[in-house]
């Protein structure tokens, strides 16, 4: 069973009725840093994912935060799915492969004003094209769509 399916299994049995959260103000902020350089991606602000250039073996620091700026009812049972893998961030609905470098899933309720964050540091293993993606799963039940932020990480 995949990590995501394993974590979400608990939430799916406890999903309640749609509460209606009002405006879509769930915002994801994704930042990648290394060697004094940084790049930021914010959900809904750019059609094309930005690119961050890193070096092979260089440690990159990936940080993300998700904030619910709505004033309505809580967004319940939202899964925050984060992964970094080889590939193109512009692909439609990319999914992590079996050799994904990092993947996490966290189920949370987002009350109005609540913020959640996470980070990891890891060395980029070898030259290639990678992408980081932070996405919600389950927000569409209340907001009508999922929210995501993505960034290309290029290792020449």
């Amino acid at each position: 069973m995949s990590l995501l399916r394993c974590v979400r299994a608990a939430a799916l049995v406890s999903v309640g009725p749609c509460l209606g959260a009002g405006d879509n103000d769930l915002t994801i902020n994704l930042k990648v840093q290394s060697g004094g350089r940084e790049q930021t991606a914010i959900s809904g602000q750019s059609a094309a994912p930005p690119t961050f250039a890193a070096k092979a073996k260089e440690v990159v620091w990936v940080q993300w935060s998700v904030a619910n700026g709505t004033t309505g009812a809580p967004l319940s049972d939202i899964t925050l799915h984060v992964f970094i893998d080889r590939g193109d961030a512009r692909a439609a609905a990319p999914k992590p492969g079996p050799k994904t470098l990092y993947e996490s899933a966290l189920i949370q309720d987002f009350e109005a004003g609540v913020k959640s964050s996470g980070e990891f540091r890891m060395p980029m293993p070898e030259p290639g094209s990678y992408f980081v993606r932070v996405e919600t799963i389950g927000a569409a039940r209340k907001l009508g769509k999922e929210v995501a932020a993505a960034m290309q990480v290029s290792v020449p």
Partner: protein
Amino acid sequence: MRRAALSLLLALLPCAARAEHFDIKLTATAPDGSSKEAFADETPPIGGLNPRPVLRAKAGDTIAFQFIMTNVYEHESARNAGIRFYIVRERQLGQKAVPPLENLTAEGSFTFNLKPKAKIGTKERVVMPQPGVYLLRVESQRTQREHEHFAAIDLEIQ
């Protein structure tokens, strides 16, 4: 019928005996397919109660690790709770004290409002660059309880 009841009882016994707040399953796998698992321990005491399993691999190998943590409390929440995980070099296998968290081989964390029955999972692939003894550990933070929980595996890289 009696057999089924016995199986259920055996499945429930460990949970009842430990009365943990967090259920944790941490797995580390080496390229040769060998794998070790660790489960929830608690601190204090320093280093916890359970001996740590040891996964052996070679320098340059990619270690895949995964953890899934479940908040088994059904009714309690904690604001700004955290989870931290890391791989850090240690002096010797099984040492009780956690080494200073410097020059970490891998690390990550989460800060979030912990809801009842919440699940958090992570998996990562890490190249172990140098020989040595390392501690792979995942731990709860700021759960507003009298102790925190962790699971840990020692990595012996030759």
